[in-house]
């Protein structure tokens, strides 16, 4: 009996492991920054180079940081979702314009709409490194105390917004500042 059941058992275990492996996304690397203070930066604004923007400006608010670039193809896919989110909710979406050119970035937003309360201009990508950015677009949710609570790697879709991001934002808005 065992001689037939054992290979079958091993086969089933293998199938289970392999099918779990198929569903995992190797690009999804858990960020060590979750529940840690958002890395500080002081960067010029994309539209007003003389003014600077820093995560500290948004203390006391729940906000999103969206890392984007005009050269990033999947950013185009997620852009309508961000526009929709900017229209339908009060939550500030801060853009981190990553390793981009000022002119092309501004033009990109003119063409596609600008969902960002403000975009920080990270030309050399240093702020991106501090935030552990490795695959643009990336979206972070930051709580009122300035801690990163969630990270979404890759383009945000409607499902991610309604299932994950907005419920979390509403939850975080109940927390004391």
């Amino acid at each position: 009996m065992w001689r037939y059941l054992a290979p079958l058992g091993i086969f089933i275990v293998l199938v289970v492991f392999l099918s779990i492996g198929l569903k995992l996304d190797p690009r999804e690397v858990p960020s060590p920054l979750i529940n840690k203070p958002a890395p500080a930066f002081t960067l010029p604004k994309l539209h007003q180079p003389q003014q600077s923007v820093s995560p500290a400006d948004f203390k006391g608010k729940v906000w999103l940081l969206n890392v984007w670039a005009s050269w990033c193809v999947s950013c185009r896919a997620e852009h309508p979702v961000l526009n929709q989110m900017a229209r339908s909710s009060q939550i500030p979406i801060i853009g981190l314009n990553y390793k981009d050119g000022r002119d092309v970035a501004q033009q990109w937003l003119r063409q596609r709409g600008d969902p960002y309360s403000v975009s920080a201009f990270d030309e050399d990508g240093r702020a991106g490194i501090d935030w552990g950015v490795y695959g643009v677009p990336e979206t972070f949710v930051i709580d009122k105390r300035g801690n990163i609570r969630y990270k979404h790697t890759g383009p945000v879709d409607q499902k991610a917004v309604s299932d994950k991001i907005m419920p979390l934002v509403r939850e975080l808005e109940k927390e004391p500042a």
Partner: protein
Amino acid sequence: MKKLILLLLFAGLGTAFAGVEVHKFEQAEQEQQYNRLIAELRCLVCQNQNLADSNAELAQDLRQEVYEMIQNGASDQEIVNFMVARYGDFVLYRPPFKTTTAFLWIGPFIILIAGFVILLVFIRKRKQAGAVELDESEHARARELLNEKNETDSQ
């Protein structure tokens, strides 16, 4: 001619594996430190390459970061900590031993031991199966058969 082509191919290999940019170091130890670190750190964009092998833009930026930290006298540990704080243990080709990575480290040995156990059980079973005990009537029948054979041989 063939040898020449091979030689050229191998000469090309050397440059293909090295990082693209040229960095100048004051001391040989710093250069060694640089080469050691970029070989040990994983590029997060092309995940099966280290920083030294990858041409991804992030890998270039991280090489630059490593270079600058070395110029400022950072130790290996400081640079590794810098990377891990941003990208997690995934950035290390040799992750530290922790509860989350324990299976990664011990797993292969568990499987190896399991393999030995299965092998031993298999061998033992075979040995037992080899020694078949016969009862009295079976012995008698065996003798009969052997005698019969002897008789037919002698005829």
